């Protein structure tokens, strides 16, 4: 064995290549020779195949790299087995040497260290994977070198030495006939000599490799090429200082694992984000890594190096930013994270439970048939929490909120309620009440309804609800009911005030209302159409219910318009209607105050629909309500225009049904009353055919209508009756009906909250939110119907919807975090987000589809080049260290960025020699290609230094002419 192992195999190389190229006589072969030929055969195979074929044959791509591949071959030598790996690169853009020029972050460690492209790595297959003693490694290296020269390959080969943590290697490369490169790398991972912490020292270390010892470096100039790359990292946002420091000190490769450690961000980066009202999210951006590359410089002496050490990173040529994402983003299992999607899932589960009971009370009492399923985890929060939530719902802020707040274009497509309304706030509160289980929801609901009832009984305005407007049928039924209730309370209050005004200090309000009610009914019955009677009644009414407002209206109208005192007194007039005149009396036609049409919630509409279906057209049920309205309008019109006839009413109410034969004269909007029009009075015209038919309903109604101003009429909407009906509904609502509405409203409320997030102009996010609304709409469509077709399937769909929601929520958090960090560099925020979106979105489809597939995915976004204009923004991300952080860290390196020392400094020194002295060999072209220097010059020495003040790796490659 020893005999075949040449003491200096390099000497044999040239000969071997020339003479023994096809030597395959193994008769005398020793085990070493067989080993070498084994290597040789493999290398020949690889050479012959070429990179493209190797990839086709199944070469494995090296992690984190797009174009670096490796093939593997296992070797055996008597006692030990080895593994030979060939790394090769497939470049799209021709021959480009890794490590130099484009300081590629994807480069393999050895490529960077030694400035090579393709290489062989041979390591024993032991546990540690390293040759422990140097003789063995040099023996192995020699064998490889022989094998390689046998097959005329110029690949460099490396062999690890010593302990793996030292990352020590030796290597050799045949560079043609004359030149050989030798490689050597080692590492100090503690106690770096002070001299080597600074650039001057490192420069001198490099120079010492090619200058005879004894020369004073400071006195001579040695031109070397110098390149530097600095990596900075933001301080992790963590309270734990120990951890903090560890991470800062840690090796670059180790930091990734450190980030895995769970710790919650306690600084609340999202304090002004819309969701912070409900929960605090972990910042999806753990921190940033900034890689600063300085241009290729020629340095001549130590002094220059010292200057470079003080140079600011702002002067560097290239900045590359690498955002570090929180690992939770790639983790599809919820764990103990709390956000909207986690809570929405809880309310969906509650919906599933809700079908087991008849009333909400059953869940609280705990004696219902479904209670066996309610295990101990289903807790109701203590009364103090309940009180706080109720207080927050009912007593905080009396002013009416902006109901369009947070509303998306598609919000209204969901059958829910506006974000700021009472019911949505109730739903959002219940998401965080206890763990949003059915019992907690039930207890909150019961208390909620109790509070609503109190508002009703005491005629206190319902908070967070509008007291006017019409019922929005696109909202959920509870919201419609609460809206109508708020209106009823408002009407009740008005009536009470009215009554108290005239009665003074009389008994309870309920009694007063009913008394007034009776009076009105009386009045209605007694009213006759005769003018004198009316006048009498009028005065009595004026005394009876002295509604000041109405009184004012009345006096105003009588003073201003009623010129002739002989005419009946107008009541409930809203003023003259344009220049229209009454046909008979030649008085101004006044428009009356009218009652608002009664409001109906969707179930009331439905009742009417069913009544019509049941009775058909025979009873004319549908028209009843509208007839009441028409009658009310007629009464009010008669009161305001005592001398009016039916035709006058039609001219005002349905102008289309008055056929005027003289267009000019009868033009109602003719402007001023001209003399001419007076002369032609009365205008000629007639009712339309359909209005003048025999038995016309309108005329019948007109004849029946008493002259009564709107205020004195029986109200079209009876607030007492309607309010009481609404409370009955709320108190007896079926649990699943409540939960269905809560699920819809909670989804809309959560989506609307996220929709308020400020993430700047990120188009993907905008469309993603839109998709969320659409998908939510389509999924929730199954709810709030009369019957749930397939409960199990619907619940499944809702769970899937929660997963979709979770994804969008994560995206929103990332977008918001990026937006606020790059307020003045929105381009960066957008490209980083696009990058993230590109990786994240494909995962969404997989995870939302398959519930079993809960594998964790590492999320890694790409590196982004920072333009000079954006540098300030990026540098602001590196906030100067706090006193606490800085005293613990002894700054020992230069090139500080806002007081941040680089966590890694990589330097490449190189020096060349003119080789253009007449020697031309066949391999010269290859030499030029691999050394990346101008053709005349060959890189003789190259040193790669990487590390910090307490961890240093040095790799040296020397080309020599042997």
């Amino acid at each position, binding site marked *: 064995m020893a005999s075949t192992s040449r003491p200096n195999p390099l000497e044999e190389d040239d000969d071997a290549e020339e003479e023994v190229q096809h030597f395959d006589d193994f008769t005398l072969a020793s085990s070493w020779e067989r080993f070498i030929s084994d290597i040789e055969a493999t290398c020949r195979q690889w050479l012959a195949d070429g990179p493209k074929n190797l990839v086709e044959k199944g070469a494995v791509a090296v992690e984190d790299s797009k174009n670096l591949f490796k093939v593997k071959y296992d070797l055996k030598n008597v006692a030990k087995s080895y593994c030979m790996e060939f790394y090769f690169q497939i470049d799209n853009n021709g021959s480009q040497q890794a490590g130099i020029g484009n300081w590629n972050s994807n480069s393999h460690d050895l490529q960077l260290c030694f400035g090579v492209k393709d290489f062989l790595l041979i390591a024993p297959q032991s546990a540690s994977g390293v040759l422990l003693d140097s003789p063995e490694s040099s023996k192995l290296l020699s064998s490889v070198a022989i094998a390689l020269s046998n097959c005329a390959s110029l690949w460099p080969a490396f062999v690890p030495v010593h302990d793996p943590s030292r990352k020590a290697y030796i290597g050799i490369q045949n560079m043609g006939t004359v030149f050989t490169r030798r490689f050597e790398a080692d590492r100090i991972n503690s106690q770096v000599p002070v001299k080597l912490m600074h650039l001057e020292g490192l420069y001198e270390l490099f120079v010492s490799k090619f200058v005879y010892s004894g020369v004073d470096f400071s006195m001579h100039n040695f031109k070397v090429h110098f390149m530097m790359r600095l990596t900075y990292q933001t301080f992790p946002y963590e309270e734990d200082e120990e951890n903090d420091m560890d991470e800062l000190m840690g090796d670059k490769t180790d930091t990734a694992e450190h980030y895995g450690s769970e710790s919650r961000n306690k600084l609340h980066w999202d304090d002004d984000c819309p969701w912070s009202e409900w929960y605090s999210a972990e910042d999806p951006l753990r921190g940033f890594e900034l890689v600063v590359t300085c241009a290729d410089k020629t340095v001549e002496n130590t002094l220059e190096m010292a200057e470079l050490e003080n140079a600011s990173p702002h002067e560097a040529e290239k900045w590359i930013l690498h955002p570090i994402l929180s690992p939770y983003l790639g983790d599809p299992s919820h764990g103990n994270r709390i956000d909207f999607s986690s809570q929405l899932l809880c309310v969906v589960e509650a919906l599933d439970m809700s079908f087991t009971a008849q009333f909400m009370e059953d869940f609280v009492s705990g004696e219902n048939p479904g209670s066996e399923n309610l295990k101990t985890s289903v807790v109701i929060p203590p009364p103090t929490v309940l009180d706080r939530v109720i207080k927050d719902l009912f007593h905080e802020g009396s002013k009416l909120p902006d109901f369009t707040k947070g509303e998306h274009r598609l919000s209204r*497509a969901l059958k829910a309620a506006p974000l700021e309304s009472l019911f949505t706030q109730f739903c959002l509160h219940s998401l965080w009440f206890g763990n949003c289980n059915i019992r907690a929801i039930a207890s909150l609901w019961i208390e909620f309804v109790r509070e609503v009832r109190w508002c009703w009984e005491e005629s206190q305005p319902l908070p967070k609800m509008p007291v006017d407007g*019409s019922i*929005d*049928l*696109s909202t959920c*039924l509870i919201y419609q009911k609460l809206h109508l209730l708020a209106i009823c309370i408002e009407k009740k209050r008005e009536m009470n005030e009215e009554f108290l005004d005239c009665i003074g200090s009389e008994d309870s309000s309920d009694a007063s209302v009913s008394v007034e009610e009776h009076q009105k009914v009386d009045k209605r019955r007694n009213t006759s159409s005769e003018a004198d009677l009316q006048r009498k009644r009028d005065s009595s009414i004026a005394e009876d219910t002295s509604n000041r407002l109405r009184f004012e209206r009345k006096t105003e109208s009588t003073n201003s318009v009623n010129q002739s005192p002989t005419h009946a007194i107008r009541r409930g007039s809203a003023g003259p209607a344009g220049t229209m005149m009454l046909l008979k009396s030649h008085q101004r036609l006044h428009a009356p105050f*009218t009652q*608002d*049409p009664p409001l109906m919630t969707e*179930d009331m*509409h*439905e009742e009417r*629909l*069913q009544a*019509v*279906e049941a009775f058909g057209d025979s009873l004319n049920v*549908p*028209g009843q*309500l*509208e*007839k009441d*309205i*028409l009658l009310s*309008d007629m009464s009010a019109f008669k009161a305001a225009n005592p001398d009016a006839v039916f035709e006058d009413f039609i001219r005002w*109410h*349905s102008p*289309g*049904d008055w056929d005027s034969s003289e267009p000019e004269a009868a033009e109602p909007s003719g402007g001023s009353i001209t003399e001419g029009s007076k002369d032609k009075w009365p205008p000629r015209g007639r009712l339309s*055919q*359909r*209005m003048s*038919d025999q038995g*016309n*309903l*309108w005329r019948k109604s007109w004849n029946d209508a008493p002259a009564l101003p709107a205020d004195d009429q029986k109200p079209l909407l009876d607030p007492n009756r309607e309010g009481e009906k609404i409370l009955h509904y709320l108190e007896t609502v079926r649990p699943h009906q409540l939960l269905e509405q809560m699920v819809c409203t909670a989804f809309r409320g959560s989506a609307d909250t996220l929709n308020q997030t400020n993430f700047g102009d990120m*188009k*993907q996010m905008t*469309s*993603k939110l839109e*998709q969320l609304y*659409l*998908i939510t709409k*389509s*999924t929730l*469509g*199954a709810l709030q119907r*009369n019957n749930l*077709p*397939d409960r199990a399937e619907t619940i*499944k*769909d809702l769970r*899937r919807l929660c997963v*979709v929601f979770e*994804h969008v929520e994560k995206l929103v958090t990332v977008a918001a975090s990026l937006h606020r960090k790059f307020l003045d560099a929105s381009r960066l925020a957008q490209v980083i987000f696009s990058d993230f979106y590109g990786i994240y*979105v494909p995962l*969404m*489809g*997989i995870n*939302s*589809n398959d519930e079993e597939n809960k594998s964790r995915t590492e999320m890694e976004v790409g590196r982004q080049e920072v333009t000079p204009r954006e540098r300030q923004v990026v540098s602001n991300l590196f906030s100067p260290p706090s006193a606490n952080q800085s005293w613990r860290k002894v700054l020992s390196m230069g090139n500080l960025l806002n007081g941040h020392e680089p966590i890694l400094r990589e330097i490449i020194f190189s020096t060349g020699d003119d080789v253009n002295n007449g020697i031309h060999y066949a391999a010269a072209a290859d030499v030029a290609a691999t050394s990346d220097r101008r053709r005349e010059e060959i890189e003789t020495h190259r040193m790669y230094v990487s590390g910090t003040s307490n961890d240093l790796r040095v790799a040296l490659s020397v080309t020599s002419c042997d």
Partner: protein
Amino acid sequence: MGSSSGQPEFDYLFKVLLIGDSGVGKSSLLLSFTSNTFDDLSPTIGVDFKVKYLTIGEKKLKLAIWDTAGQERFRTLTSSYYRGAQGIIMVYDVTRRDTFTNLSDIWAKEIDLYSTNQDCIKMLVGNKVDKESERAVTKKEGIDFAREYGCLFLECSAKTRVNVEQCFEELVHKILETPSLTAEGSSGGKKNIFKQNPAQTSSASSSYCCSS
């Protein structure tokens, strides 16, 4: 809540709304469609509606047709009926030009204001074509208006029953062709993106994600 019990005897329930100026013949149109008669009806008071069962293809349909009063006074009252309508028919009188111009001045705006259903099918109907001699709005004008507002268009006569059936049937066909509307009106089975078989779901949800 007054919910109907049991399985309904129809596949789809569609809500259709009739709007337009007073006196253009909305009620007559409806009556002509539902009971094949023509009468000079009293003006509608507020809102009225009729139910009509139709069978189109294999599908049993129930149409709830809401007939609104054209008078301005009733407009606030009728606004609530726009919601949830799968079809809206705008009616004008071909012999009265103002009823046509009011469509763009008033009624189209009402639809924008009150209808939340984006996919809702709109239809323009010119009524009273039996009075050809008094025609004040040409068919071309009607077509142009319909094109501008993206409506179906038809001229008909409630009196002679010309095109009355076609008018409602065409509307229903169009509703049936619109998946979001049929999903709403469907009485039994639900339809949503998760319902498809699992293999399709992944592509469906990923297309949700990727399309931008």
